[in-house]
C-alpha cells in the first residue's frame, strides 16, 4: 500500500516539473469546429454493470439468457448477434456462471468465423474459457472487452467497418435491455440515469445513416434504426428518467434483441 502511494505521489510531484497552462473553467463547445469533434468513445458493458453493482446487488441470473451458438441470417445479423453474445458474456460474468461464460467464449468464436474474423479472436476465446475455469472474473471481463476490440479491428482491416459498427450496436442493445431489466425490478433514479446516453445514440444513428444503401435496407438493420428513433426522446431526457421511461426503453430494446436472435 505504501509503495502504491509512493508511486502516485512520485507521479504527482513530477507533474509539477512540466509547464502546462491551467485549463479554462469553461469552454464554448459550440465554437469548436466539427472536424475537431469526430470521435465518440463507446463504453464497454462493464462500465454500466459496475455502477449497477454499486447501487445494489442485482440478480444477474435472472437477466442471463442462453446465447446462439451458430450464425443465423445474413452477415449483418451475424454481426449484431455477435455483439449481443459478447454483451451476454459480461452478464454471465456478473452472474458468475462459469459454464455459461465458457459456452459464450465458444459461441463468440463460431460467430466470428461466420464473419471471417475467427483467427483474430481464437486466442481471446481460449483466454475467456481458461479464465472462466479459474473463476477469474476480472480477467474474463478484460478478455471479453478485448474480444470486442479484436473483432472490430479485424473487421476494419477487412474493410468491413460497417459490420464492426453493427457488432457495437448489438452489444449496446443487449446491454440496454439488461440494464432496463435490472432497473425495472428495483427502480432508482441513479439506476435509471444510466440510460441517459444522448451522444452514443446520436453516434449510432449517424453510423447507420452512413451505411451503404444495401445494408441500410436490410430488414433487421432498418428495425434497429427505427428502435433508436423510438428510444431517442427518453435517452435525450435531461431531467429524471421515470420508471415508465425505463419500461419503454426495455420494451423497445427487448423487441429488437429478440429479432436479432431470431431466424
Amino acid at each position, binding site marked *: 500500500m505504501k509503495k502504491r502511494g509512493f508511486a502516485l505521489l512520485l507521479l504527482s510531484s513530477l507533474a509539477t516539473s512540466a509547464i*502546462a497552462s491551467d485549463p479554462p473553467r469553461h469552454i464554448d*463547445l459550440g465554437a469548436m469546429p466539427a472536424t475537431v469533434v469526430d470521435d465518440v468513445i463507446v463504453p464497454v458493458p462493464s462500465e454500466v454493470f*459496475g*455502477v449497477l453493482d454499486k447501487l445494489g446487488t442485482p440478480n444477474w441470473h435472472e437477466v442471463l439468457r442462453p446465447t446462439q451458438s451458430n450464425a443465423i441470417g445474413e452477415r449483418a445479423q451475424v454481426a449484431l448477434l455477435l455483439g449481443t453474445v459478447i454483451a451476454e458474456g459480461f452478464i454471465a460474468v456478473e452472474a458468475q456462471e462459469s459454464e455459461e461464460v465458457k459456452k459464450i467464449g465458444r459461441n463468440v468464436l463460431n460467430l466470428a468465423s461466420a464473419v471471417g474474423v475467427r483467427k483474430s479472436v481464437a486466442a481471446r476465446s481460449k483466454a475467456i474459457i481458461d479464465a472462466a475455469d479459474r473463476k477469474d472474473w476480472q480477467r474474463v471481463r478484460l478478455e471479453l*472487452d*478485448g474480444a470486442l476490440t479484436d473483432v472490430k479491428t479485424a473487421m476494419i482491416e477487412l474493410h468491413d467497418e460497417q459490420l464492426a459498427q453493427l457488432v457495437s450496436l448489438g452489444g449496446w442493445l443487449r446491454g440496454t435491455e439488461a440494464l432496463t431489466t435490472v432497473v425495472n425490478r428495483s427502480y432508482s433514479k441513479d439506476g435509471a*440515469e*444510466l440510460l*441517459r446516453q*444522448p451522444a452514443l445514440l446520436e453516434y449510432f444513428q449517424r453510423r447507420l445513416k452512413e451505411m451503404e444503401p444495401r445494408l441500410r435496407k436490410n430488414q433487421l438493420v432498418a428495425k434497429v434504426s427505427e428502435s433508436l428513433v423510438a428510444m431517442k426522446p427518453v435517452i435525450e431526457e435531461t431531467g429524471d428518467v421515470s420508471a415508465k421511461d425505463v419500461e419503454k426503453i426495455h420494451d423497445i430494446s427487448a423487441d429488437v434483441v429478440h429479432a436479432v436472435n431470431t431466424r
Partner: protein
Amino acid sequence: MKTFSRILTAILIFGLFVHRASATLDDALSFALEAADPYVKEGFTVREDYWGGDLGVKQKKAIMQQLFKGNEYWFWMGTDVSNAVVSVHVYDSDGNLAEVESWHKAHFAAARVTPKHSGSYYLIVEIEKSDEERTHWALAYGFR
C-alpha cells in the same frame, strides 16, 4: 530495370514511413499505459482500446465520451516526444470543466473524473509545446 528500381525504392521509403508512423503511435500508447500502471494497482480497469493520432503545436482534438455517474475515471495521455507538453482535460456537455484533478509531466498527462451526472462529456487533448511539427499522442482510460 531503372523504373523497377525506382518503384522498389519508393515502396521501401513508403514502407519505412508507415512503419515509423505506427511505431511512434505505439510509443505514445506505451507512455499512456505507463502512466496508467500505478492506478491499475489501485483497482482501475484499463480498457483494452485506445485513441490517438498526431497534432500540431497548440492544436486541439475533442473526443466525446459517455460517462456514468457512480464510476470514477482516469484518462491518460502519452506522447513519444520527450520535450513535448501535452494535456488532457474533461468538460461536461455544457462546457464546464468536469475533472477533479489533472497532472502533466514529460511524455504524459492525465485527468480524473467522478461524473456528477451520466451523460456526454468532452475530452480535450492538446499539444501545448513540442519541437516536432506533428506530435503523436495516444489516450487510454480506466474506470472503477
